[in-house]
């Protein structure tokens, strides 16, 4: 839907092989990311709304292994 596309700046993707369960992403973006019982991120909703864009980018930059990526909408 067009409206949804305008309201999101992309979607979050975790590379599960690179991810090492550091957990900084969940600290910096608790609205969208929480940790499972073993410290690995669960993406509650991959779509990132406009008002969380800056936080999402910061979370992506903070990942010690660059496992978190923000994929722009197609």
């Amino acid at each position: 839907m067009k409206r949804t596309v305008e309201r999101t700046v992309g979607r979050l993707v975790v590379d599960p092989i690179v991810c090492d369960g550091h957990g900084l992403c969940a600290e910096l973006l608790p609205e969208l990311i929480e940790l499972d019982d073993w410290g690995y991120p669960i993406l509650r909703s991959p779509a990132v709304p406009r008002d969380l864009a800056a936080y999402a980018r910061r979370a992506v930059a903070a990942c010690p292994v660059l496992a978190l990526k923000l994929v722009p909408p197609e």
Partner: protein
Amino acid sequence: MTFEARLLAGPAFAAGMEPYAAHRARLGQLPPPRPELIDTIVASGLLGRGGAGFPVGRKWQAVESRSLDDARILVNGAEAEPLSAKDRALMHSRPHLVLDGALLAAGVLGAREIVLYVGARHVDAQRSLQRAIAERGRLRVPVRIVLAPDAYVAGEESAAVHFVNASDARPTVTPPRPFESGIDGYPTLVQNVESLANVALIARGGDAWYRSLGRGETRGTALVTVSGAPHGGVREIELGMRVGEIAAVSGVAPESVHAVLLGGYFGRWLTREQAWPVPLDPLALRAAGATFGAGVISFLPAHQCGVAATATVLEYMAAQSAAQCGPCVFGLRAIADTTFALATNSAGVHDLERLERWTGQITGRGACRHPDGAVAQLASAMAAFSRDFASHARGRGCEVAPALRQAA
């Protein structure tokens, strides 16, 4: 089971490999590969037989649109699913059907190489394929055999490609998928041996012929592996046949069965009452939340505990993780340990809650579908054996004698 066999038409299994001369005499010359074959396959509705059930024609289209006459064909005969034997049986006794399918794919998709990815332990299949290649003489496309390591995930699409490229049979993150970038980076068709054998027949008979058999929405026949039965083993069935019918032919009396595992270790449990009328039709099964998977039909005997059987499967799946992704490594280990504790009556009610939570958390968070399959199998077990899980959680075992004991 009164239909005309297709994949298994010809000499009986016991006769071993069908040689080239007999194959040609029975089926005629292999038709030349033409682009129209893709449309025929699409029209036939042939679904992949590796476990995912993806439409074969669509896969061929995806590779064809990217191939610049530099594609690769990876014939997937790894068959690491412990309950399945159909792929190696097919490779052992009908290698020329498999080769036909691979050569057609190579011709239609513009491929430079065919890789036969065969499980390292399946020596009969390897020998048959080697003899078959020799019998063919010079081929337009080079064919080589690559032995797949004896690991469950080695048969996964990206793992197979990874092994051929780098001798590392662990799944990789997708995208890109093999049809985009596979062996040496080229568009690669990864196709199960049974799927290719079906293509070899469809190329000769046409899509209408293929669709002339089948009881429901999914048309055609398929190979299944029946276990837990007096006359089990590999059979060809008409798609849509019911589990009860297969049971009857395999010598299984309904009263002797507790439950049925359909699809494989990554499949679904059904109670005997639920299972008997179920049609073995991939599309119907998927709509019902079950799966045709790798064509595994495994009967759990009446005296065996369902919780114990589930724990055994989970232990295997946890140990077979490629150890790359946290949710799979820790998640499968946790659910395996907890189910084992339940099976030995050493767990508590909180463990059931934990299992529920974990089954919600683990799916979709690995690089491949291995953890998803294990979790789906557990979820179906908790539904099928719900009373037994509950009573084990209270430390009281189940009606069936608890069959699980610590190994010495």
